[in-house]
């Protein structure tokens, strides 16, 4: 038969080299964030910091206002995640289990927009938000992302897989339609909600172009916006600061990913295959 163990040591070696190559930029980024400006400019560059210090991080939060950017990023991400979880699961449930007039066209339109590239809506969306006076405000950063067609698709697929009998049983027991959704079906949707929540969080946290255009003063910057502007502005010469900033941007998502890794991968797998 096929030996699963024998001769696979070389595969570990190849994989190790590959994974080291893939994460080398991150290792270098984190190590570099502890280096001084002088050391970062050394030729040839060093790997390990000669004298590690937290100076760059201290400056991020004292001289630059990374606390504000971090808070903005968190607020936007949390509200966007909450909106997607609630509204997408509501419609996803209705599409999967209930009959109502207009159901088919509604689903068709939502699905059709899945394929439309972001650039198509970018201009009119900007005009809309500008006319509503929401430029340079948190609602302007949040509202366009509060619901996504993808979220509806994901939740609908999940609810389709749950037994319909639960719905009938709830009705026989005299529960109202909304209560059946909130108290019977929603608690069962944990895995799908986790997947949608994590994907939405990642998307919001790393979202870059829209906040770059909408957030116009420092008090409304999100982390990626601040980092992008500093990396071309007057601070671009302070490379250590940028590396520390990059580390601060990456740390929360890496943490979220580490905690939910298993669920997340299962979730991506299910959305991918279906």
């Amino acid at each position, binding site marked *: *038969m*096929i030996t*699963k163990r024998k001769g*696979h040591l070389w595969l*570990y070696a*190849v*994989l190790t080299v*590959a*994974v080291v190559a*893939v*994460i080398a*930029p*991150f290792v*270098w980024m984190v190590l570099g964030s502890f280096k001084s400006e002088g050391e970062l400019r050394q*030729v*040839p*560059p060093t790997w390990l910091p000669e004298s590690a210090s937290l100076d760059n991080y201290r400056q991020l939060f004292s001289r630059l206002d990374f606390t504000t950017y971090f808070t903005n990023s968190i607020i936007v991400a949390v509200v966007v995640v909450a909106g997607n979880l609630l*509204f*997408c699961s*509501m*419609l996803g449930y*209705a*599409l999967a289990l*209930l*009959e*109502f007039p207009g159901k088919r066209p509604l689903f068709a*339109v939502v699905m059709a*927009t899945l*394929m*439309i*590239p*972001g*650039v*198509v*809506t970018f*201009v*009119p969306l900007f005009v*809309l938000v500008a*006319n509503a006076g929401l430029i340079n405000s948190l609602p302007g950063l949040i*509202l366009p992302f*509060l*619901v996504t*067609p993808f979220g509806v698709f994901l939740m609908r697929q999940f609810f389709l897989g749950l037994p319909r009998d639960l719905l009938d049983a709830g009705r026989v027991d005299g529960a*109202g*339609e*909304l209560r059946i*959704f909130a108290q019977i079906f929603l608690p069962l949707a944990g895995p799908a909600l986790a997947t949608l929540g994590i994907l939405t969080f990642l998307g919001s*946290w*790393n979202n870059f*172009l829209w906040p770059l255009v909408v957030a116009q003063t420092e008090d409304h910057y999100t982390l990626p916006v601040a980092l*992008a502007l500093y*990396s071309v502005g007057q601070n671009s010469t302070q490379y250590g600061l940028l*590396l520390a*900033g*990059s580390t601060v*941007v990456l740390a929360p*998502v890496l943490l979220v*990913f580490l905690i939910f890794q298993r669920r997340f991968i299962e979730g991506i*797998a299910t959305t991918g*295959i279906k």
Partner: protein
Amino acid sequence: MTATTTRRAASQGAEPPPRRPARKSGLREGRAAWLLALPFSLLFLTFTLWPVVQSLFMSFTDTRSRDLRTPFAVAFVGLDNFTRAFGDAKFLTSAGNTAYFVLVGVPLTLTMALAAALALDKGITKFRSVFRLGFYTPVITSIVAVAVVWRFLLQPDYGLFNTVLGWFGIDGPNWLGDPNWSMPALIMLASWRNFGTGMIIFLAGLQSVPWSLHEAAAIDGANALQRFRHITLPLLRPTLLFVSVTTAIGYLQFFEEPFVMTRGGPLDSTLSMSMYTYQQFGFGNYGYAAAMSYIIFVVIAVVTALQFRLLRENT
């Protein structure tokens, strides 16, 4: 309520009793469903559907940024914006660049994703999640952070890339400064950044390839490569289609990499269609930008349909 229904049903005599309650609950069901659909629908209508329709409208007009206060004063120009795009040398350059990026980037990303998935699926038993996390980290990283680091790694003199190439006696190019090397650098960056997603989906797809088939083929004397070609690949076809379609859709819109790394340069060598559209938006040529965005949409639709044809039909 049950009481009234029964009484009514009884009073109407011949009518079959379940009919009326069914319709009534249908009405209730419909109302509840719309109540559930309402918040999404309102937000979706405002922030997705309306912009999509408006963008289409704009693409047939000469809307510029100063026309926004008086949206009805703009003139219809028919297909002018679309014909203008196909006569615009810069747009054609951007289309060529996008094609280059997609034609090289998609196969490269798919190969990396599949290779990683195959190695993790059957090849090893230990540290699987460590490797998986390592390969997936670039996917979850902000492009801005990626740019900060990669710009440094790609520096011509003392960047990590050219240092490593130097070990093998290769004099590495000025990656981002040379029009011939800027696109390969961005393709490398994009593949590095995206192959993790494909890997995860391939890993899921590989679970549907039964090990017993491999064993049977091995007994018949098939080597690993033959087994891959004749067992794994055919069974993986739907997954391959999915990954290739989603990767191509993403790459056809490629924007962030040149935006943060090169601003489309040097000499427009990394200017993509999305990026040129964004530039026109920045210049206030809204009608023209909208038309170009719809051209991208059509290209995406065509490429997607083409892939369905190619990967589904022939065996």
